Structures are given as structure tokens and as C-alpha cells.
């Protein structure tokens, strides 16, 4: 980031305030996450005692119950398959389409571009009924494949346009010289372009995984007892007979963990991807 010479002079005093403000903000952001984690270590009696919000004798009982009961491993595997496969397919197809759109002219280019831009904004609630009907008619309902297809389709438009911005930033000369060396367009794409898109791919991966791993309303409609994902399983803890807070928070924490870890590891790429396209840098 650029150093700003005028601000260097008055550095010491306001910096304390700045740290103070940053810390306060960080607490607001992280606070509810901490409450979720803390609650997951409470017994049922403790969850009803607000005085014990952060100081209590922790128990691992909730995690033990969640991990052992109710087909947890089946749901975890489903979630992993859906999250990983949907992300990989979205990335591969999204990168290819972004490259095609950025580097080639073809007859239906505009139609394709505007349609995908519109699809980017379709609310998931709109899709629930027709997707259920179509998947039912084609036998895709209750299969992991059906869920993956849906997540790929809803994530592609965003990924495509995110990566489109990244492709435009690449110097075209590299590809031209590869072509002169006798590389076909497909070979050029995989050998030259894809490696250069790595930062954009990281951001796109986080975005796609975020949806495919977290989504539960369509997943609820489109899966059955053997294909259910973890967020769906968590939503089933909310019953008419009340919420077993300790257990459901343990499951919610387990669901939140992978995206949190990915974010902590790749925050820079994530932020770069988030702001790309909107911000000239």
C-alpha cells in the first residue's frame, strides 16, 4: 500500500485510537462467532444460563454426540463431494468460458454475455420449485449429481465474470508468441493462461465453495436421507420441540470451520477477488 507522507507526521497519538477502533470492530465481527463456538462446548443446562456466556466448565459431549450420531460421516462425505466437485467443475468451465469471452469474437457472444450476467442475479428461492420439478422428471432428484449441477450452474456466471476481469489483465503478447511457436489455442490456454490466473482462481474457488458448502434450502429440497449435506442436517436440529443449542452449535461450528480456515489461509486472494472488476488497482 502507498505510504502517505502527510500522515506520517502525526503518527503516534491517532494510531492508538486507530488500534482501539480496529479492535472494537474486530470484536463485533468475531463476537458472534465466539458465542457460537463457546455454546458448542456447553451442556444443555448451561446453554440456558446467560451468566455463563463465556466462563463455564466446557464439555466435549456435544461434539461427541454430533460426530457419532445421525449419520454425521455420511453427511460430511456428501458435503465434501458436493463442495469439492462443484468447485472444481465451476473453476474449469468458468475459466475456459472467461477466456473464450475475453479473447474471441463469435456470433452469439453478446447473447451469451448478457444472459450470464442476468443469471448471476437469479434468487435461489425462484429456482427451488422448477429445479425440483425438472430434477424429478429427469431422475436427478436425491442424487449428489443433481445438487452439483445446480451449484455449478448458479456459480458459473459469477466465476465467469470474475475471471473475465483477470484474463483481460493478462498481456496478450504471451499468448501470441505461444501461437507463433505452434501452440494451438487449447494448449495455449492450459499452458500459458491458466497458470497466470492463479490469484483469480483462488478467489473464485473460495466464492464457489462458500455457496456449495453452506447452502441448505435447495439442498433440503433436492436431497434425501442418503444424500443430505451437513447444513441440511444442521437445519433439522431446529424442531418444534425446541433447539438443542449445544449440539446444533457444535454442528454449525464444524460447518463453519473449513471456510474459515480457507479464508484465514487465503484472505489476500479472497479480498483481491472480491474487489477485482470494481476497483482499478
Amino acid at each position, binding site marked *: 500500500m502507498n505510504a*502517505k507522507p502527510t500522515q506520517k507526521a502525526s503518527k503516534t497519538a491517532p494510531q492508538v485510537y486507530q488500534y482501539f477502533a480496529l479492535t472494537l470492530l474486530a470484536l463485533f465481527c468475531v463476537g458472534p462467532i465466539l458465542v457460537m463456538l463457546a455454546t458448542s462446548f456447553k451442556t444443555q443446562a448451561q446453554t440456558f444460563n446467560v451468566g455463563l456466556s463465556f466462563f463455564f466448565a466446557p464439555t466435549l459431549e456435544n461434539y461427541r454426540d454430533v460426530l457419532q450420531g445421525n449419520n454425521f460421516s455420511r453427511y460430511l462425505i456428501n458435503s465434501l463431494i458436493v463442495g469439492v466437485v462443484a468447485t472444481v467443475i465451476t473453476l474449469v468451465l468458468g475459466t475456459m468460458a472467461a477466456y473464450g469471452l475475453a479473447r474471441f469474437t463469435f456470433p452469439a457472444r453478446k447473447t451469451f454475455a448478457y444472459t450470464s450476467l442476468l443469471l448471476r442475479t437469479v434468487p435461489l428461492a425462484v429456482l427451488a420449485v422448477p429445479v425440483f420439478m425438472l430434477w424429478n422428471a429427469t431422475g436427478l432428484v436425491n442424487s449428489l449429481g443433481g445438487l452439483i449441477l445446480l451449484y455449478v450452474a448458479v456459480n458459473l456466471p459469477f466465476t465467469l465474470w470474475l475471471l473475465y476481469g483477470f484474463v483481460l489483465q493478462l498481456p496478450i503478447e504471451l499468448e501470441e508468441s505461444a501461437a507463433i511457436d505452434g501452440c494451438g489455442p487449447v494448449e495455449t490456454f492450459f499452458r500459458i493462461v491458466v497458470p497466470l490466473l492463479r490469484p483469480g482462481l483462488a478467489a473464485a474457488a473460495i466464492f464457489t465453495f462458500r455457496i456449495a458448502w453452506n447452502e441448505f434450502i435447495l439442498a433440503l429440497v433436492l436431497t434425501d436421507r442418503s444424500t443430505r449435506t451437513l447444513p441440511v442436517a444442521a437445519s433439522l436440529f431446529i424442531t418444534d420441540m425446541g433447539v438443542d443449542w449445544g449440539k446444533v452449535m457444535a454442528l454449525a461450528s464444524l460447518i463453519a470451520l473449513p471456510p474459515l480456515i480457507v479464508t484465514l489461509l487465503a484472505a489476500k486472494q479472497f479480498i483481491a477477488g472480491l474487489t477485482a472488476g470494481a476497483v482499478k488497482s
Partner: protein
Amino acid sequence: MRHARSTPWIFIAPAALLMAAGCLLPVLAAVRLGFFDWSMGTPWSEAKWVGISAFVDAIKDPAVWRSLWTTLKFAFVSVSIEMVLGIVLALVLERSVRGTTFFRTLFVLPMMIAPIAVGLTWRYLFDSQFGLVNAVLGAFSIAPKGWLADETLAFAAIIISDIWQWTPFVFIMVMAGLAGVDSSVVEAARIDGASTRQIITKVKLPMIAHVLAITLVMRLIDAFRVLEVIYILTFGGPGDSTEVLSLHIYKTAFIGQKLGAASAISVLLLIVVAGLSYMALRLSNPLRDPVAR
């Protein structure tokens, strides 16, 4: 680049096919379903063609308009607050200090948490009997409130949870925009005797207007799509005070069992969102205006 005629399609076709099958086709199917009376749990062969009557009913139904109004109110209030907070925070915290990266990482965490976890956590925090929110208010001797039991407070609750999750997004976008502002321009203004406030309102904000506009539209589109957190936090209640249009569609389909009617209302939502997308395209058309370099 010179290329064979089929080359672009090698790159485009797979994505185009999947988007068509998994997203475009369902959207078109939703429009078509709007012309049928079809109850969940009955075979498609029993669905009755009813023409545009479901659309007419949807437009006449005050519940649809109420939920559209709730959606608009939700989008307007939450996005305004998020924009103002995000911009102010970014301006205050613009200067980079040691550890900025660390703090920024913490700020993006709420965005990554699963909606189910967000909804559950806030539902727990807002609980009238054992929620932390009432406990904190109690420390200032404010009587406990039934947060999710009062129309205004429940609406406030869904706004607060949205602000928590999405203000960081605005903050990060604005930070990135400000980082791109040429410091020599700011310096020149300062030498000309501009006050800090003038620098902000006359120099910095106009220079990032483009970023602000795109951030605003992106947030608005997302606010119109919101469903999962509200589904968990209030399920639309009390009354129908937090029933946004997405939730109304869900309830019509899966509780009212009226798949056709739900589809007709979906079309209404699609029109609203399409209008927003049009606005977004006017502000920044990635096809015409390849800015991202």
C-alpha cells in the same frame, strides 16, 4: 487472434450448456409453471392449465405486496446502514498500520460463515430468556425485550444480523477503492488549503464513486436474494413482519403446496431483480467497459 470457427465454442460451450441446464432452463420453467395450478404431492399430469389467473391473483394478493414492501424496506435499510458504516470505517481506518492485514482477515470472517450458522447464532443471541443481547441491555438496566416477538424488533434483528455479515464487504471494497486514489491529488488539495472534510467529500469520495456504485448495486441484488438467514432467525414472523418475497415464495410452494402460484410470484421477484441488474449494467458493463486492469 485468428482462430478456427469452432475454437471459441470449445471454451464457451461446456459452461453455456451447464448454465442453460441448471439455471436458465429452471428460470424458464418457473415462468411456464406460473400458468398451471399444481399442488405438491400430486403428479404433474394432474396439473391444470389456468392461464394468467395465478399472475392476476399474485398481483391482487395483499400478502404479496406486503412481502415485496418488506423486501424493499429490508434492502433499503440494511444496505444504507452498511454503506454508511462501511464508508465511514474505511475513511477512518484508511491509513495502513502494522497488522492491517490481520484485521482485514478478521473482518471477512462473517461473510464466510454458513447462513445456517449465522441464523442460529443470532437466534440464540436474541433469545428473550437467555440471549446475550438482553443480558447486555440488562447491564444498563434496560428491561428484557422479546426481540423476535415484536414486529419492529424482529425486523431490527434481521437488519442487525445482515449488517454484521455484510458491512465488512462494503468496508473492504471502499478500502480497496481508497488505496487506488492517487495520493498526489489529495496532497495537492491539501496544499490548496482544503479541510479534511472537503478532501473527503470533494476529492476522495468522487474519485471512488464508481466503486461505491458497484458496491451498492451488488449489495442491493444480494439483499433481494436474502432467504436463508431469515428462514432460520424468524421464519417471517411475528405476523408476517419479516416475510421477504423469497420466503413468501418458499412458503407458498412448500407450505401452501401451490407450486404454480409460487412460480407466478417468482416471476414478480425476477422482474424486480432484473431491473436491478439493468441498473448494474448501466453503472458498469464489463463487456463495454473493461475497467479491471
